[in-house]
């Protein structure tokens, strides 16, 4: 039953992924001229001799002399069957090697942000709903409003300025200068924590604010329902009552928020990490776009989109597991 559901969802996702990959390929093909020419020009400008044989190999390997739709199929075939995302002309390395560690960082930071958003937002949302119109509720509604409206990149800009002015430490990058390039150690990890914490805080801010609002609204709906009144009338302790009944129901739709939370976190991460200069995909993406290093930029977009789609799939599956109404073939309300 569950397995069948998962299979069905995956099959539904395939055309979606196909369409996404076509859009991305079109986007990276948009700039005028092909990027190999741009690359060769750039090399010649900086006085580097271009090896004609290498150019030919590259052209043939990626079908750069063929029509666009064939190039697309070559690109896709290389990715799917050989795990080859193409070559970064800017770094003169395969894209997979350039992306590798940075992709890992992006996934870790986005994932941790997601967890942090949930851990912070859900209790606050519940508490705000129980104590509606209290000072706590107003304070968090206000903070939430600011967090939702003021964009992360401006918060990042202002916070690195404030930190620099008050402490004299430039909070850019994920590590202090002495740890850059050093092997992983306990000290390096400790050094990373405040920096990573700031990044995660800023990235998660908008999502947290949105989630608090949603959780609060859902809880308010549930709290007014009959079964809560009944339970209270029967003398169930208030804390137990809240956690056992309305929270359990209100938390289900929260799982489906991954669908919008994950893309927005990854989006926000790209922008914030450029400003904080984190070793993630964001700064790399920007540089590759400015240099028209299109295989790199395209691969980044593709990977990030696939991650988003997979994240949504996982949230769907989780929802099915958690919510018996869906599990037993009913409809989600």
């Amino acid at each position, binding site marked *: 039953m569950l397995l069948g559901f998962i299979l069905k969802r995956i099959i539904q996702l395939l*055309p*979606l992924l196909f*369409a*996404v990959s076509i*859009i*991305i390929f079109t*986007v*990276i093909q*948009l*700039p*005028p001229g092909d990027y190999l020419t741009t690359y060769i020009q750039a090399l010649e400008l900086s006085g580097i001799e271009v090896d004609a044989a290498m150019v030919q190999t590259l052209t043939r390997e990626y079908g750069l002399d063929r029509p666009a739709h064939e190039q697309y199929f070559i690109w896709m075939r290389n990715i799917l069957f050989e795990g080859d995302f193409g070559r970064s002309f800017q770094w003169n390395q395969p894209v997979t090697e350039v992306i590798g560690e940075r992709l890992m960082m992006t996934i870790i930071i986005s994932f941790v942000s997601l967890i942090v958003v949930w851990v912070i937002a859900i209790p606050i949302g519940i508490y705000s709903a129980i104590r509606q119109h209290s000072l706590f509720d107003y304070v968090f509604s206000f903070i939430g*409003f*600011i967090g*939702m*409206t*003021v*964009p992360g*990149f*401006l918060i990042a*800009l*202002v916070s*690195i*300025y404030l930190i*620099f*002015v008050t402490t004299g430490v*430039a909070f*850019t990058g994920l590590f202090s200068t002495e740890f850059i390039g050093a092997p992983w150690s306990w000290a390096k990890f400790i050094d990373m924590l405040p920096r990573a914490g700031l990044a995660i805080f800023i990235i998660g801010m908008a999502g947290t604010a949105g989630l608090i609002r949603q959780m609060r609204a859902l809880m308010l709906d549930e709290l007014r329902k009959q079964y809560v009144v009944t339970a209270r009338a029967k003398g169930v302790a208030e804390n137990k009552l809240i956690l056992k009944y309305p929270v359990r129901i209100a938390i289900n739709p929260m799982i489906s928020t991954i669908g*919008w939370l994950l*893309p*927005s976190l*990854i*989006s*926000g991460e*790209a*922008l914030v990490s*450029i*400003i904080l200069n984190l070793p993630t995909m964001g700064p790399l*993406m*920007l540089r590759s*776009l*400015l240099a*028209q290093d299109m295989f790199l*930029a*395209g691969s*980044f*977009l593709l990977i*990030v*989109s696939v991650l*988003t*789609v997979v994240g*949504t799939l996982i949230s769907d599956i989780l929802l099915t597991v958690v919510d018996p109404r869906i599990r037993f073939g009913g409809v989600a309300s």
Partner: protein
Amino acid sequence: MGLLNKITKKTSKGISNIDHSREAYEVASQWQLMWWKFRKHKLAIIAGIVLGILYILAIFCEFFAPYTPLHRFPDHKDSPPANVRFFDAEGNFSIRPFIYDVELEVDPVSFRRIFTENTESKHYIYFFVEGEPYTFWGLFETNIHFFGTKSADVPIFILGGDFLGRDLFSRILYGSRISLSFGFVSVFFVLLFGSLLGGLAGYLGGTTDTIIQRVIDVLISIPTIPLWMALAAALPRDWPTLNIYLGMVFIMSLLGWTTLARIVRGKLLSLREEDFTMAARLCGATHFRIIFKHLIPSFASFLIVNVTLAIPATILGETALSFLGLGLQPPTVSWGVLLRDAQRIETLAHQPWLLWPAVFVVLTVLGFNFLGDGLRDAADPYK
């Protein structure tokens, strides 16, 4: 007796009062009720006023800006915001505000540039002062500025100067013309695409609905900002400003219509079952006419709310892209382009006033959100 009379008088007055307002409430049009409800939302009113001021400053930026955005004062590079004073160094009061000219010194040890006020050189601030000539709206030439000093070589930088000695305040005002208009222009297209496609999906249903829904699914599964970045990077760098501007409008509306389309679709799905739709259909009205004449007006207020909330998103999009160097390019000024100067932490530490454009961005975004919140409450006045 007298007392009783008084009481009855009072109560009857109270009743007639209620009757009065009740009557007014019952005959009031929907839009009037909305306005009454909106008026109660103090924060939204304030936001509306702030936005109004910002837009007036943007529309008449040539007049309100003391200088043109590219005018350089070579002696005032990185000059901090001017100290507008009413008391001079001797403690004398002057009703007309004035500034002291600043003098640049370079610290012999750290090579830091230090500006000190020269209390000998006092320059009064005048309103409607003659300054740099400009062509107002491209229509006629004039040289009247809202405020300024009368000496051409002593600038008044109320928000400081940038690294080329240009007035940040003037640049922000000129930039606001681009950034603020961007919000409206893109939202117009978002509204057009969103209501058209959402309308078709919701009204026609069936295959059309499925196709449009799938397109939305595809578009929202690609993270917005990276896709914006890639699309903006595809705009040729050597394009004239107007083309890049329109190109970015296109990018924003291409990806922004999905939210609105979903809302329109949802609304139409319920409205198309209503009797008045059926009546129109029986009278032989075309689909297009039913959607735009009958259905959309019936939830116009919801559209207005959503449009208000969509404007800040597009303004932020422009700001972010220009800030990253993917959007508008200098010498064009927009808030994002201005913020590029504030990118380096070393610059920021010495010239924190370069963050002023961010204040304007935040003010605008908060303004639109509060306004939208107020409108949302007002949109359903019968609640």
